[in-house]
């Protein structure tokens, strides 16, 4: 579904992605784990078109994304839930969700909103409140729900667990693993390697802008090098 080949990206003169190869197949949950600063966010920003690419190709559902501006990518089925949530703080929870479905005007928007509220009941309770007043965990739920309102076939998730209490992290990872049943393919980027690998089918390990290991998630969790470097075991 999504194929990345030799992807390079830079901030000014400093290259931070030095040729990334990865692929995500339809129906999979794939995770990219790595330490802070490895380049995970930059990778997702390249995929969503909000960060310039300096080399390599991105192919999504058989078409290249080169030259496709960021605002056209959701319509192709590729939606990013960005690092730091980036919700519309001045708007209400419900308005945030409606904007998630900006591309759609049909009846399914209402139904999708119902589904989002079923997925995260707390959002239904707070639907008329300004999103900026939500707690960190609730904002993360809103960011994910808003992305899902865009009916992605592939969801790009950037560190949904960042800064959240373990119990909330668990809840969010449960929802992510449930997306499979809804037919949404997921590329999940995480520092929380253990949590991410537990729900993923396959994983990649990223270090300073390069993929250093890849394999089935279960194998990676069992790998002694990973256990030492990322799982603290």
């Amino acid at each position, binding site marked *: 579904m999504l194929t990345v080949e030799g992807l390079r990206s830079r901030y000014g003169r400093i290259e931070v992605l030095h040729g990334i190869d990865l692929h995500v197949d339809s129906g999979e949950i794939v995770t990219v784990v790595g330490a802070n600063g490895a380049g995970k966010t930059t990778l997702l920003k390249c995929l969503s078109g909000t960060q310039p690419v300096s080399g390599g190709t991105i192919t999504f559902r058989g078409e290249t994304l080169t030259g496709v501006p960021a*605002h056209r990518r959701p319509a192709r089925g590729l939606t990013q839930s960005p690092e730091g949530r*980036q919700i*519309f703080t001045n708007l209400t929870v419900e308005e945030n969700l*409606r*904007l998630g479905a*900006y591309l759609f*005007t049909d009846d399914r928007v209402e139904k999708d909103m119902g589904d989002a509220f079923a997925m995260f009941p707390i959002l239904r309770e707070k639907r008329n409140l300004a999103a900026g007043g939500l707690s960190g965990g609730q904002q993360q739920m809103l960011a994910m729900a808003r992305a899902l309102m865009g009916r992605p076939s592939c969801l790009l998730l950037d560190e949904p667990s960042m800064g959240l209490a373990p119990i909330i992290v668990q809840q969010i990872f449960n929802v992510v693993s449930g997306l499979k049943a809804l037919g949404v393919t997921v590329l999940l980027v995480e520092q929380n390697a253990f949590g991410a690998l537990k729900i993923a089918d396959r994983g990649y390990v990223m270090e300073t802008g390069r993929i250093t290991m890849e394999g089935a998630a279960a194998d990676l969790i069992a790998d002694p090098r990973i256990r030492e470097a990322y799982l603290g075991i």
Partner: protein
Amino acid sequence: MPELLQFLFSGVTVGAVYALVALGFTIIYNASDVVNFAQGEFVMLGGMLTFVCHAAGLPLPLAALIAIAATSAIGVAMNKLAIEPARGAPVVSLIIITIGASIFIRGGAQLLFGKQIHSFPAFSGDTPLRIGGATILPQSLWVIGGAVVVFVGLWLFFTRTLTGRAVLATSNNRLAAQLVGINTGFVMTLSFALSAGIGALAGVLATPITLTSYDVGLAFALKGFAAAMLGGMGNPKGALAGGFLLGLIEALTAGYLSSQYKDAAAFVVILLVLFFMPQGLFGQKSVDRV
């Protein structure tokens, strides 16, 4: 009593012009957090271009339409040439760029149109209407009506249309707006076109009363900005209320004290309001803005 009514009439007329300018500020501010100090030049261009087209023999309505369209195009060009290339710069830098653009437009107008004062005929004649012992010009009613119509139109635009919501979303979080599929570049283009068009409309409506010349823009920009701040920057309701309030304060001060004090009185009130309500009368840069 007729005296008070007379002052109110003139206050509401001037206030409607300020409100239109303030509404223009509101749109660009909503889309980009930029206070566009070239807003006053759009007012000047609206009046000046209408004069030029009318003097060239075009009927007044057509001349006005051309002036509004041309000013919108100038607004779009300003965004493309001056604002967009500086995207990512701090808002303060962008505001300084708009001041530069306003100086550029004023200079261009001076070169093209000269330094003379111009006007064109009022739309519905110059015979004052008598109401309750006071008089009001038919053109004043055009100005007031224009402000109200533009306000209602904008209010519907921001609250009822998807594109209006896209503008609000872009102002709140440009990155997130792109990620839900909003073409934020287009939102900026649209905002400048709308703002410039509304500014030009203010110039078209006001010029038969206020006259125009290449350098009227600065005063409009300052008064419109003050009105927008008074009402709460970014809120169409605030722009309308702030504009009328400012106009009334000026007219009453000029009438009962002296016209020398009218600007001072207006700014004292604005400072007081902002001291006690820093967000302006309708401020609350939050949910109820929508």
